[in-house]
């Protein structure tokens, strides 16, 4: 049984008399603990898919079912890591996670337990050294770590990542990718990530969902990545199988569904 299923999803944006169809008939089943990437050219509506799963947008037709329940509106069971981190600049690193934890677990956890949980999640992303820093005092990569800690601290059923490393430099990005892989291995989270980076998709994913170009974008192909875990980026660089997957995604994006 699938844990998260997206069924016959259509999305049109209507402005006045003009309706433009962005997504058409998206169907996807995701198992518990699976890591899914959605890749496609910019403007193909991949972020729209994620926003619908998050509940920030309503589908025009079809729907999303998570753990047997239909998604209606946003909720902490589908926590999101935003591309631009979306930390609140007037709160410290600790307080940014605390806002989420206090809201969600005020009744179920004691004060001390909540504090430990916040610190635990920040330790997971190696941010224990900067609990009292403000977002403007830390680097972009660190902000994104805090964003990940905040999302993890919500104990989500599925973690949604919207181009989480897109704004980071290549070295920081690689570092964070490794950390996300480690966290997913340890915690077994179900994750759904939007990306436009082919290497990132192959390295992290169990399956890569490749989208056709819009308007009326849909899923063109789904590639199962059967590389054994844990995956090591240096060993994989020379691995023929890895390069086979990489080539498959590249050929989808740049030969069959090139942007005109």
């Amino acid at each position, binding site marked *: 049984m699938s844990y998260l299923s997206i069924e016959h999803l259509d999305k049109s944006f209507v402005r006045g008399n003009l309706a433009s169809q962005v997504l058409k008939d998206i169907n996807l089943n995701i198992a518990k603990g699976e890591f899914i990437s959605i890749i496609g050219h910019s403007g193909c509506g991949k972020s729209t898919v994620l926003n619908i799963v*998050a*509940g*920030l947008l309503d589908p025009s037709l079809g729907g999303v079912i998570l753990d047997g329940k239909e998604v209606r*509106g*946003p*909720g*902490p069971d*589908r*926590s*999101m890591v*935003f591309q*631009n981190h*979306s930390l*609140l*600049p*007037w709160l410290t690193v600790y307080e940014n996670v605390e*806002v*989420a934890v206090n*809201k*969600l677990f005020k009744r179920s956890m004691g004060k001390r337990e909540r504090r430990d949980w916040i610190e635990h999640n920040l330790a997971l992303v190696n941010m224990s050294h900067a609990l009292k820093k*403000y977002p*403007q005092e830390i680097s972009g990569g660190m902000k994104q770590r805090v964003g990940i800690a905040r999302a993890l601290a*919500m104990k989500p059923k599925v973690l949604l990542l919207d181009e989480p490393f897109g704004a980071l430099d290549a070295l920081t990005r690689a570092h964070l990718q490794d950390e996300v892989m480690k966290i997913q291995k340890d915690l077994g989270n179900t994750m759904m990530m939007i990306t436009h980076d082919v290497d990132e998709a192959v390295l992290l994913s169990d399956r890569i969902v490749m989208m056709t170009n819009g308007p009326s974008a849909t899923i063109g192909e789904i590639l199962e990545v059967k590389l054994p875990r844990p995956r090591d980026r240096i060993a994989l660089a020379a691995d023929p199988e890895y390069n086979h997957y990489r080539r498959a995604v590249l050929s989808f994006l740049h030969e069959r569904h090139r942007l005109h």
Partner: protein
Amino acid sequence: MNANVKLQPANAEPASIARPSRLASLARRSGRYAAQQLVPPLVILLVLGVIWEMLCSGANAALPPPSQVVAETWELIIDPFYDNGGNDVGLAWQLLASLQRVAVGYVLAVVAGVALGVLIGQSDWAMRGLDPIFQVLRTVPPLAWLPLSLAGFQDSHPSALFVIFITAIWPIIINTAVGIRNIPQDYRNVAQVLQLNGLEYFKTIMLPAAAPYIFTGLRIGVGLSWLAIIAAEMLIGGVGIGFFIWDAWNASRISDIILALVYIGVVGFVLDRLVAFVGQRITRGIPAN
């Protein structure tokens, strides 16, 4: 410290050398800062004073020169707290009376202004309904409200408070509304994912996100209310720095007027800096988005 020095004599010497030189360099740096920041305005002030003295020293000059101003107002300067009953009180009491009016009217304006700003920032309907009215009303000069409020309140004291209120409220409303409209979608998304309720959203997202804008409005508002109270007091009388000026004019005490102007300027400056300082502390210097 001493014990350390004895145990590690090798370290003692450089430390004892470093200390006084650091102090000295601090003193030198703060001295240089004072020289850079304080000397130019003092020089200009002196030059302007000399020009003023020369221009007004003639036998038939209409305005007194600075030396005469100081001589004639010396009693007011050295004893700001005298109280001979009625309106005949020291300048400190006059200023405090005005400040008290400003404080009451301004606080009312802050509360009502932020509340209305939140309303029109949050609701499109309220925005469409209220914004045109506000845009017209805010151009009405403060003193034009005075006769109407005197007629309405039948008393000068609440009328003065009302004039301050109505003067200060517009920039507060408008800036608060702009701040709330400009809350980034990111923060709204965070609030939605966390399912914050109205009050939680107001406290954790809305107020802090809009704070830089709100404080811009508060700062403009406090400046305007200080402008308005001086003018209003000239008309309504009683104790207050505005009426002090009017009284001095009627008694041809031009030097008193000049002294009062200096005090008004300084108080206005302090009020502005005070609000700016509070804003700086609360927003911790985070710029408006």
